[in-house]
């Protein structure tokens, strides 16, 4: 079939869906939806529809990114805008069928908003609500709206027109288009994508390879996973364009094994591309032949680093090697290779579909376009967001995120994962772009954004990241292997109240040595979380040295106790304590044996809120 034929079929199917005479029910069943119970919701909907003998179409979609409100269900009745419902459980699902489908009561209280033309009384427009208004949905445009297992849905919404356009352009023209768009790598370092492609195109050596980096190892980041699960073709189209531009015949996607659903979606998408002649020999009759292989990672964070990733594809231990030579000149099996992040490739598809100027409409001077972030931690509305670069941290945390959970006090926002840093309240008005975040001592990173509040201990956070990088160090460089270990020991001492004067200075000294003496980005950036917490939260380090953990996190520095005049002697905590550290008769004040207590906090959790008799204290 020609591409026009495919587009016609796709448009027909999409139109039939949007004009469907029966209601359309969409359920978000990406990993986040599933973990919140979306599968049970689908079952409940099916059952209710059958019981009521009412016809409706159920379609499983990916993730809109409103993870805080999962499971999400969107219902569109003919002639009405679609209504998106949050926090749907099986009982609510059943009621949605009986109330909205059968009796036309849209249950406005459970609705998050409407999508599409028309209004429904009492329900705001979804994209005008505080969580979505500041967002610009480009990369995520299809997520949660199309069936990710159906290539026709992608095509109906403009998919693969970027490839078709590229196939009619000279290679240099494509590279120029990407250059004018100002696209920089979304995997962390922010290297201009066009330049990498140019290097590879000009490099001698055949065959050439292109690789999509879907290893997404930063703990606390899930942008790439969500995109692959919700709209896999947007990434695959970018990989095809990449391959065509640099003159490769083969491409690889290296995806984490911890993402089984993303892998499944990729395999399915690839099979559909093959059916439609979008991969393989002579793609769309253009003479361009290209094949894609899916490689599963095996659980090593360092394999996100490009040279380690290549070693892993070759079947070796994933150890980084010195650069230069850069992969663009000597990569996979020594051949010129371009490695790009998932979101970079999705941006490439958009640039070719819509043009460089359109892409560069948003963003700041040196950071063009939009970027997705996983906004998580102590924030009210956690989820996957997409914003124009240059937006302030405050607009993200307080605007989109709705502020801090339980209205506690904001303490820091962490960007860039284990390579990044923790930024304090004073920097909330900084714009989010590559340069500003670097100046502040953090990095843009791949898009993890973890919000921390007064209950988060910054020394513990620093220790947490270092624990991570230290375990993930491949062991090749001595400063990375031993330096991080030494820093870890010092931090452990501090969190256990065994810190000594001069520890902070020593940490800084070792940190510099690790940064300087490490081969790859893992070691070079591992000290960043420690350095930024020292820079912005030094008082917390000092408090620990004096035996206090102000956020009451570090176990060695806290104690639990029962406040005598609040305790009603209900024995709830006594029964819950896992080590039998609590004693007391019924209706008598209870006490905790500090020697036995393992500081698990269960007593505090179970003590009824109306008594509030258990408290956690720190210091003498």
């Amino acid at each position, binding site marked *: 079939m020609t591409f026009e034929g495919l587009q016609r079929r796709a448009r027909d199917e999409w139109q039939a869906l949007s004009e469907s005479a029966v209601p359309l029910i969409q359920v978000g069943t990406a990993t986040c939806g599933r973990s919140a119970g979306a599968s049970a919701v689908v079952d409940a909907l099916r059952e209710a529809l059958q019981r009521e003998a009412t016809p409706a179409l159920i379609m499983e979609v990916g993730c809109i990114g409103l*993870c805080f409100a999962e499971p999400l269900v969107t219902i569109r009745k003919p002639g009405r805008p679609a209504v998106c419902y949050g926090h749907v459980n099986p009982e609510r699902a059943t009621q949605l069928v009986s109330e909205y489908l059968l009796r036309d009561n849209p249950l406005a209280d459970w609705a998050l908003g409407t999508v599409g033309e028309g209004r429904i009384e009492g329900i705001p427009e979804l994209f005008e609500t505080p969580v979505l208004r500041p967002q610009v949905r480009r990369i995520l445009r299809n997520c949660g709206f199309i069936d990710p297992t159906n290539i026709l849905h992608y095509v109906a919404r403009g998919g693969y027109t970027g490839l078709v356009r590229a196939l009619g352009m000279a290679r240099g023209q494509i590279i120029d288009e990407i250059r004018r768009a100002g696209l920089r790598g979304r995997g962390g370092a922010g290297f201009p994508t066009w330049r990498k492609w140019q290097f590879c195109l000009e490099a001698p050596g055949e065959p050439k390879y292109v690789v999509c980096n879907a290893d997404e190892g930063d*703990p*606390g980041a899930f942008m790439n996973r969500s995109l692959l699960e919700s709209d896999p073709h947007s990434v695959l189209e970018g990989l095809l364009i990449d391959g065509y531009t640099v003159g490769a015949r083969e491409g690889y996607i290296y995806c984490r094994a911890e993402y089984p659903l993303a892998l499944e979606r990729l395999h399915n998408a690839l099979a559909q591309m093959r059916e439609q002649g979008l991969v393989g020999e002579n793609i769309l009759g253009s003479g361009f032949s290209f094949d894609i292989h899916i490689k599963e990672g*095996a659980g090593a964070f360092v394999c996100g680093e490009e040279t380690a990733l290549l070693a892993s594809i070759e079947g070796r231990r994933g150890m980084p090697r010195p650069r230069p030579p850069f992969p663009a000149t000597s990569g996979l099996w020594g051949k010129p290779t371009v490695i790009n992040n998932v979101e970079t490739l999705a941006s490439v598809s958009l640039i070719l579909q819509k043009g460089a100027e359109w892409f560069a409409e948003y963003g700041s001077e040196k950071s063009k376009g939009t970027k997705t972030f996983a906004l998580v931690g102590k924030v009210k509305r956690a989820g996957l967001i997409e914003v124009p670069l240059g937006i302030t941290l405050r607009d993200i945390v307080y605007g989109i995120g709705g502020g801090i959970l339980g209205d506690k006090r904001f303490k820091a926002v962490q960007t860039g994962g284990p390579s990044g840093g923790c930024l304090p309240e004073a920097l909330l008005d900084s714009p989010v772009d590559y340069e500003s975040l670097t100046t502040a001592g953090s990095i843009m990173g791949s898009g993890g954004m*973890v919000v921390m509040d007064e209950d988060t201990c910054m020394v513990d956070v620093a220790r947490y990241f270092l624990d991570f990088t230290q375990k993930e160090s491949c062991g090749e460089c001595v400063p990375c292997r031993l330096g991080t270990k030494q820093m870890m020991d010092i931090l452990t001492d501090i969190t256990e109240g065994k810190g000594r004067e001069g520890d902070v200075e020593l940490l800084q000294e070792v940190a510099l040595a690790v940064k300087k003496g490490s081969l790859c980005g893992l070691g070079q950036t591992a000290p960043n979380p420690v350095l930024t917490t020292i820079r912005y939260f030094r008082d917390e380090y000092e408090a620990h040295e004096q035996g206090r953990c102000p956020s009451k996190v570090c176990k060695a520095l806290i104690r639990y106790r029962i406040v005598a005049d609040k305790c009603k002697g209900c024995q709830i905590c006594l029964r819950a304590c896992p080590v039998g550290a609590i004693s007391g008769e019924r209706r008598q004040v209870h006490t905790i044996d500090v020697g036995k207590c393992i500081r698990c906090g*269960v007593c505090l959790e179970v003590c009824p809120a109306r008594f509030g008799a258990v408290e956690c204290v720190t210091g003498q």
Partner: protein
Amino acid sequence: MHDRIDAILSSYGRDRANLIPILQSVQAELGYLSEEAMLRIADYLGVPESQVYGVASFYAQFRFTPTGRNRIMVCRGTACHVRGAPRILDEIQQVLNIREGETTSDMEYTLETVACIGCCALSPCMMINREVYAKLTPTKVREVFSKGGQEQ
């Protein structure tokens, strides 16, 4: 066991680049990588045994001892950490009386940690086999295990 390993091997070409996919398939079949399996893989690919073990031991995914019937994976991602994951891990260790990386003596559970399962918005969380348990508290953990929270 031979047949099962050989059946897997024969579905791959004798290409070094297939080493990791083969190790993954064999582990999916046997639950872990036995010494015998690794010897056969080395033989099949014509790669020294030390290199097969070298690669397998580099990656966290590979295990060299049989695991329990149910795999518990506690998320140690950042979002989970700041929302109390360490307490969750402590509680599981306490309840099952094993440490991270160990298997209960009745072979019911193996306890592991993973970096971010990608459900950060619902943190802290863990997976038991393919099922995700979200928004955990120590008390919830105990409920899960007192109900024998395994295959559903």
